[in-house]
């Protein structure tokens, strides 16, 4: 016996018997165990029990035998695995990036919601998008908003067609907001007030070209231009309209627009011209009112009572007002009024002229 063999006792052998039975011990170890078993009855009995247990376990029917002795289960599993592999091997469906692919998938899975969504989108597009496009498109022949960019050329003005003038008071400003729907080279809507040079340009052009624009539009233009009477271009247009416009209502409106500048020489001269040459008595009366107002500073009071030839006694007020016109010009006004009082075909004009002479009379006395 070798010294190593002497060390192997029952306590060492017992745990090795499990591996000895299933042949999982090394060659040298096996020999040592075998030698010990040959001399040890207890360990041999334990080995016999181990073998019996091992044999019993090995002989016991196994689940694999019970469930698949015929191999049908295996065939079934192979078939299922092949199907799973087919799914794995199949080329991915439309893996390329597609815009709105998520929307396609969402709609495919929810047809009812998709239909409702499409109807909603259609309604929104019809009610909101189409009008917006009409308003903003420059190629559809529809009007566009232009806020006073470049002045219009003479060609544009001469070809211009105005389809509407809207004047609305603008909060916080003396000048009303004006909206002109104009068709020149392209349809446009001019929006602004009389302070805009382009707006003034168009309005004065309309006033000066009475043959191209109807009286109603010219009246609207004069109404708008009234706030810019100090502008030279506007003043010229108003004076021209007061003298030459074919429509008396327009001439009267032009005179009214000139009220704030009635004391100026050019306006006064226009008023005198109107008194001498205008064929319409109403216009002449308006001119008388403005003249009197410009002379005594009571233009407003005079203009509001044109139908009262027996004018209220204003000399007291007039006497305090300083004469604005030079003496010869004042004389010319009186002379014109006296002429009207004597020769005007309209009785109403004659009466109004008499009242005006009485009104300015006290100053003449002074």
């Amino acid at each position, binding site marked *: 016996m070798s010294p190593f063999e002497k060390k192997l006792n029952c306590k060492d052998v017992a*745990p090795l018997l*499990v*591996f000895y039975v*299933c042949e*999982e011990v090394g060659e040298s170890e096996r020999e040592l165990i075998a030698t010990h078993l040959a001399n040890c009855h207890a360990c041999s009995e334990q080995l016999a029990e181990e073998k*019996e*247990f*091992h044999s*019993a*376990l*090995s002989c*016991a*029917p*196994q*689940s*694999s*035998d*019970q*469930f*698949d*002795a*015929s191999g*049908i*289960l*295996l065939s*079934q*599993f*192979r078939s*299922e*695995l*092949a199907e*799973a*592999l087919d799914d*794995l*091997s199949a080329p991915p469906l439309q893996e390329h990036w597609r815009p709105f692919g998520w929307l396609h998938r969402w709609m495919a899975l929810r047809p009812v919601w998709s239909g409702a969504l499409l109807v909603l989108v259609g309604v929104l597009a019809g009610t909101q998008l189409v009008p917006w496009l009409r308003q903003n498109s420059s190629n559809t022949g529809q009007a566009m908003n232009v806020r006073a960019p470049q002045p219009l050329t003479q060609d544009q003005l001469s070809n211009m067609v105005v389809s509407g003038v809207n004047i609305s008071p603008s909060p916080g400003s003396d000048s009303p907001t004006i909206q002109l729907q104009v068709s020149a080279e392209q349809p446009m809507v001019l929006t602004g007030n009389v302070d805009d040079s382009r707006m003034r340009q168009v309005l004065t052009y309309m006033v000066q070209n009475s043959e191209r624009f109807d009286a109603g539009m010219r009246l609207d233009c004069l109404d708008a231009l009234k706030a810019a009477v100090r502008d030279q271009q506007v003043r010229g247009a108003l004076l021209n309209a007061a003298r030459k416009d074919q429509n008396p209502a327009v001439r009267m409106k032009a005179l009214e627009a000139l009220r704030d500048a009635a004391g100026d020489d050019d306006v006064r001269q226009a008023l005198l011209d109107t008194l001498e040459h205008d064929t319409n008595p109403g216009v002449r009366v308006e001119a008388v009112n403005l003249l009197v107002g410009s002379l005594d500073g009571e233009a407003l009071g005079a203009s509001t009572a044109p139908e009262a030839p027996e004018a209220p006694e204003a000399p007291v007020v007039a006497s305090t007002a300083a004469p604005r016109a030079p003496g010869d010009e004042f004389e010319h006004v009186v002379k014109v009024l006296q002429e009207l009082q004597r020769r005007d075909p309209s009785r109403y004009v004659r009466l109004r002229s008499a009242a005006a002479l009485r009104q300015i009379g006290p100053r003449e006395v002074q």
Partner: protein
Amino acid sequence: MQLPRWALALADENGCSGSTNAALATMTSLPNLDERALVAEAQAGNRAAFEELVRRFDRDVLRLALNLMKRPEDARDVYQEAFLKVYRNLHRFRFECSFYTWLYRIVTNVCLDHLRRRQARPEDQAPELNAGHHEEGITDFFERQREHRPTLDPERSMMGLEIKARIARAMERLSPRERVVFEMKHYQGLKLRAIGDALGTTEETVKNSLFRATRKLRNELGGLR
């Protein structure tokens, strides 16, 4: 059956198209390929080669799965999950061990996962398999797959089922790893080194697991006969 004109145009002078010829050659030669060549073919994307690999090893895989899981439904899950993992990860196999070992590593890991999940859910334990009520809870399909050989001795069959049920109950006492080691050693006949490779552990660890498993089973079962 007459071939369409386009097929005839593609056919070579022998009357067979080239691709068909190659496919036939591949099909006939696959079973003759050794394991390494077959794996290489499968890694190259040859689906037929992979299926041949499955056919070579899946019987042992199913046997292990059935013995460990005790339920055909669970065994099916293990079978499919394991081979799909192999299919997806085949390109990572570098021939550093045998394919069989690599396959068993995957299968045992899947089994361990299932056993651990089952252990965490007591309501999901495997049914007791004894002669009295072993048929409960088994689906019709799997019921049809049972062995009903009339030549077997009924008395012996009953005794075998009784022993099997006792063993199944005793196996439930083992940890998942101990069960896998015991199963692979006793019923698959694998060497401890191979089991260690499959489980990704040392032979010594496997030895300890086998020893503990055997002791537990002996205590539970006592004398089986």
